[in-house]
């Protein structure tokens, strides 16, 4: 891909079609809110559109989008309005899941702390290794491994309490 200040429509369309789900999922994992997730996803792709960075592979693009999505969501979470509203609206959405058992599982996952949630998603769903997640989230490798272990344990305990079959 050549250097360009503003990316072509074709490039944006291709990247959007390929990675919108990933970006949306990352944002949803952090924001737990559909409307804010839409806003964050849009902002991430707008940043991609206006960025001059030259990407060598699609994996490189994907990693860049995940990191940018995480930063965008952090910024939104830091916003004063969001911090005030979050206290009242601290219920994770799981409206996308029709199956009740899956919805329950989803709620348990979302009830995990954010620092456990995203590494678990990236590890199990996106297939990144702990070292890759460490590099991507700019967190120590050992810390990521600790988060993974604690997150799994917490999730397991919560599911066992609810009688979810292991």
């Amino acid at each position, binding site marked *: 891909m050549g250097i360009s200040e*503003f990316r072509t*429509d074709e490039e*944006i*369309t291709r990247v*959007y079609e390929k990675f*919108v*789900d990933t970006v*949306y*999922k990352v944002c*949803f*994992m952090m924001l737990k809110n*559909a409307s804010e997730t*839409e806003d964050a*996803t*849009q902002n991430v*792709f*707008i940043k991609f*559109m*206006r960025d001059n960075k030259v990407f060598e592979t699609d994996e490189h693009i994907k990693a860049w989008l995940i990191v940018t999505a995480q930063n965008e969501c952090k910024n939104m979470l830091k916003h004063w309005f969001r911090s005030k509203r979050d206290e009242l609206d601290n219920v994770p959405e799981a409206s*996308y*899941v029709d199956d009740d058992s*899956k919805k329950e*599982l*989803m709620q348990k*996952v979302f009830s995990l702390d954010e620092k456990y949630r995203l590494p*678990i*998603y990236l590890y*199990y*769903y996106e297939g990144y290794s702990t070292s890759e997640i460490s590099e991507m989230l700019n967190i120590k490798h050992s810390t990521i491994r600790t988060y993974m272990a604690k997150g799994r344990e917490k*999730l*397991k305990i919560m*599911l066992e309490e609810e009688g*979810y*079959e*292991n």
Partner: protein
Amino acid sequence: MKIEELNSCFDAISPTVEQRDKMFASIMNAKQPVKVVRFYRYATAVAAVFVIGIFGVVYSTMGVNNVTNDATKNIVAMKNGEDDILNEEKYEYLLETVEEEKSVTEEIKKAYPVHNDVTNDTKVAVVEDVAHEPISEDVFTDIPSVASENEADTFSETGSGGGSSYSKSIEAETISLEQIMNHDVYSKLFPTQLAGDFKFVSANINGNDLNAVFEDAQGRYMSVSIISAEDYGVYECVEVSDIVNIKSQYGYFNFTLNCGEHYVMYNVECDDALQVYEMVKSSAYFKN
């Protein structure tokens, strides 16, 4: 819990088709203003350069027109065909002005041969010659006896004359204000006159005007008439019986007046061109 179950939950978190289209439309809409902003940036830069260029041209033109006192520049402009700046009538006037200035300059040079020479070395030599010339007694007889009694005693050796001869000796210089404001003329006229102490000879007040005669370090006499002395604080003296001292340096005169009951000191600063002009206009040397 199996990993597949967990992943199926994550799978479920996906935007709907409507959400995808909506987000994509928003992203593509956000692209348009970028181009517009970039265009406006370039347009603003070009416009700024254009405006600065026009301002520079206009400013330089205004600068040429503002030099109304500099006849030479205007004549050059006229010769260059800039008819929009000058008309024929003004051209003739400016030519006359230049000729007048030249004639006045020649008169000044004739009146003050000491300062005619261009080089400083020659100038100093001529000044010394003048300084060593003996002062004619006729000069003292022309000085009015309006000084204090002490000063009058001093001059009793040479005698004191009447006011009529005094008025003959002092002739106002016909130096234009433009010439005074021209620093070259100023420096030619004043380099020695404003340096060193001046010895008081005589003084009187005529209305609000202060008239005084002084002798400089080179034995030459100078009359200084300060018009509307009220402006300089002389009005504080009901009657000036004596000017005790006058010192002069480049840029100002320092007078000390004996007003009978008290002394009054005041400075006349000469940094203002008009003030210098008044002094030059009303001062004259008694030729030896």
